[in-house]
């Protein structure tokens, strides 16, 4: 019952007018930036880091909570309304949502995504409030040896699962660990890989590398293969009454709940993040659908939007469990949240719930508040989001670059950092080009130093005997669980790929799934001429 009172105290903090204002600002900015194509939630958090530099910790954390959930919402709007194939993490929503929008049901798709995200976000946040304290209570008892085991799990799953190629993921992880080594060794104060340069002696700032990889790398990469021609946005038609009809609601509520139940647990374990959760939800909805509803899959079935969107948001809340209680990020976005905490010298990990309980409960309470705000704001503001989607691409990517250099410069106020930003950005460009995932590098960069110090601490205790690392029963259990999770996740990943190949082969969904926009104009051809509202909005 203690936790309940703590949560209420958190609400008391989060409901103060000034913090409500910060939460509102966070969700608005988060959604607006999340809507922008090419900007995922991780880049959103990285780019907006400078905004919070001058805020006090509670306000900053509340802003980040808003940005975190807002970014997720924004992403689904993009994939439903923008008529180009997007990233694979949002591909499932694009699959059905895009088809629905083309059939003039865009409003219903947006509505079921928004309400589903709200339902899932709220249930998952409730689960988070009750599960996290117990995990934290367990976590304070574990020592460095168990910690090392947990981080090995995080490294391997993140490295091997975030991305399509295991070797490339591990290479990306290795690069992150390597960059993290540059600078003074925390335990012996020896310089490592500084090559005598005073600029490298302090190490390379995590924010700098993250902004470089996410923003500069992305801008350069998109510039190398910019999609030219008009921006195709599917217009949203119909008034408020047609947004979510009774029939839609009847078909949506079960997928929302199922999506939540799938998303939350998948989010809490390091199994590849929200990507796997949305896929699992989509596959199960497709399997459970009957009769004519089943026929609609691939052509705009509302269940195929409702379930995955709910799963996505539930997973986002689930990811916060290992992040807040163990200090272990399992996605790139969570890694960026961890950086935000580190900036404020808030020790994320087992002690967080004890040492900063006011702050962490205010954060959780503001997740509830932010979720509600998003539900109220998002649907009425859809006109604004559509405007944002129409930003000319040269201005969008030029603006991303300006924000990136702003963020880089404001880390230490030295132009050298802008040059380092450019160098790491070029690295990010080539990583994207050759199919190396970015997320493992960021996670390696952030967890590397913590991992090393825990490893050395464990070995100091055991006087250099590595067997001690697996002797503790808890650590041994973690390693066994690791093997199980790993095998299961690889299996899932393979099924996901087969499934995507199958959908791609199906033809009608191919343009969304596989970027088969090779045939220009193929997208526009899907429109039914019978409905005047369905015209592609190409005359801009």
């Amino acid at each position, binding site marked *: 019952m203690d936790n309940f009172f703590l949560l209420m105290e958190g609400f008391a903090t989060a409901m103060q007018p000034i913090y409500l204002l910060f939460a509102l600002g966070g969700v608005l900015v988060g959604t607006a930036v999340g809507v922008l194509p090419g900007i995922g939630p991780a880049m959103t958090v990285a780019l907006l880091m400078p905004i919070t530099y001058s805020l006090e910790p509670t306000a900053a954390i509340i802003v980040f909570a808003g940005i975190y959930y807002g970014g997720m919402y924004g992403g689904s709007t993009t994939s439903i309304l923008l008529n180009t194939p997007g990233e694979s993490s949002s591909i499932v929503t694009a699959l059905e949502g895009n088809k629905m929008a083309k059939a003039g049901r865009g409003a219903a798709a947006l509505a079921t995504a928004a309400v589903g995200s709200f339902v899932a976000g709220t249930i998952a946040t409730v689960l988070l409030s009750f599960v996290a304290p117990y995990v934290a209570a367990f976590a304070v008892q574990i020592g460095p040896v168990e910690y090392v085991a947990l981080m090995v799990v995080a490294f391997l799953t993140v490295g091997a699962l975030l991305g399509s190629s295991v070797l490339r993921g591990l290479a990306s992880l290795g690069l992150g660990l390597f960059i993290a080594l540059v600078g003074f060794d925390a335990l012996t104060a020896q310089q490592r890989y500084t090559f005598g340069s005073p600029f490298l002696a302090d190490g390379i700032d995590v924010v700098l590398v993250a902004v470089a990889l996410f923003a500069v790398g992305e*801008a350069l990469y998109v510039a190398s293969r910019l999609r030219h021609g008009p921006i195709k946005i599917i217009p949203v038609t119909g008034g408020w009454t047609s947004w979510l009809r009774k029939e839609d609601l009847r078909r949506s509520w079960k997928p929302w709940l199922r999506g939540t139940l799938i998303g939350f647990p998948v989010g809490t374990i390091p199994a590849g993040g929200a990507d796997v959760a949305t896929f699992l939800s989509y596959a199960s909805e497709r399997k459970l659908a009957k009769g004519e509803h089943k026929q609609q899959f691939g052509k705009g079935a509302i269940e195929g939007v409702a379930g995955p969107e709910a799963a996505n948001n539930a997973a986002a809340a689930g990811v916060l469990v290992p992040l807040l209680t163990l200090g272990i990020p399992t996605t790139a976005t969570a890694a960026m949240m961890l950086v935000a905490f580190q900036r404020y010298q808030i020790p994320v990990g087992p002690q967080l719930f004890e040492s900063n309980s006011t702050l962490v409960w205010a954060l959780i309470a503001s997740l509830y508040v932010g979720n509600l705000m998003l539900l109220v704001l998002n649907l009425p503001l859809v006109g604004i989001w559509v405007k944002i989607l129409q930003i000319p691409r040269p201005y969008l990517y030029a603006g991303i670059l300006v924000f990136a250099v702003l963020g880089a*410069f404001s880390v230490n*106020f030295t132009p050298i950092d802008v040059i380092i930003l450019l160098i790491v950005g070029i690295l990010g460009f080539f990583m994207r080009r050759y199919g190396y995932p970015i997320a493992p590098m960021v996670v390696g960069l952030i967890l590397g130093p913590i991992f090393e110090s825990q490893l050395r601490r464990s070995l100091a205790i055991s006087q250099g005997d590595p067997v001690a690392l697996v002797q503790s029963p808890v650590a041994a259990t973690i390693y066994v669980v690791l093997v199980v999770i790993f095998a299961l996740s690889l299996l899932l990943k393979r099924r996901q790929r087969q499934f995507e190949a199958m959908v791609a082969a199906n033809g009608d969904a191919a343009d969304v799934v596989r970027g088969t926009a090779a045939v220009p104009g193929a997208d526009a051809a899907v429109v039914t001429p019978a409905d005047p509202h369905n015209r592609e909005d190409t005359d801009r």
Partner: protein
Amino acid sequence: MSTSVQNTGSGTAAPGKPVGELVFALIIVSIGVLGFVAGAGIQTPPSASDIGPRAFPFAVSALLLVVGAGLVFQVLRGHRGAADEGEDVDLDAKTDWLTVGKLAGFVLLHAFLIVPLGWPLAAALLFFGAAWSLGARPWWRNLITAVVLALVLQFVFAGLLGVSLPPGFLERFGVFGG
């Protein structure tokens, strides 16, 4: 993140010969080698506990070396990486190296101009140059957008949020901070 299917055709892999990809994998190998060479120079104080400051760098270098070698082998055998996807990315377009070069050039220029010109001017120039490189026309609209954006950012971040960006010629106007 990319979950693409390797066997669905040429659209996924970077066009052209895998020379670049091979070079990138070799760079990973060489970072691993560098890690061992430079790592040997890390001083180990005699007071250090059983595992000193060298062990972890060596482990990371070994990881890079092994994984890099595996990647070189994979690329040589024809297994290519799947290029990243995105809403604004046309995977079938030819790589536009010129634009990439221009963008990188403007960022570099910006780094050298922040101190002499102040942040707002340097940022406006970066935006103007980047928008022009990416194909935005006419030039005067780019210029107006660049100047307005730079002034707004300077005002919000330096004036309101207290981030100390050097205001340059705007120094005499208090609202732009510094």
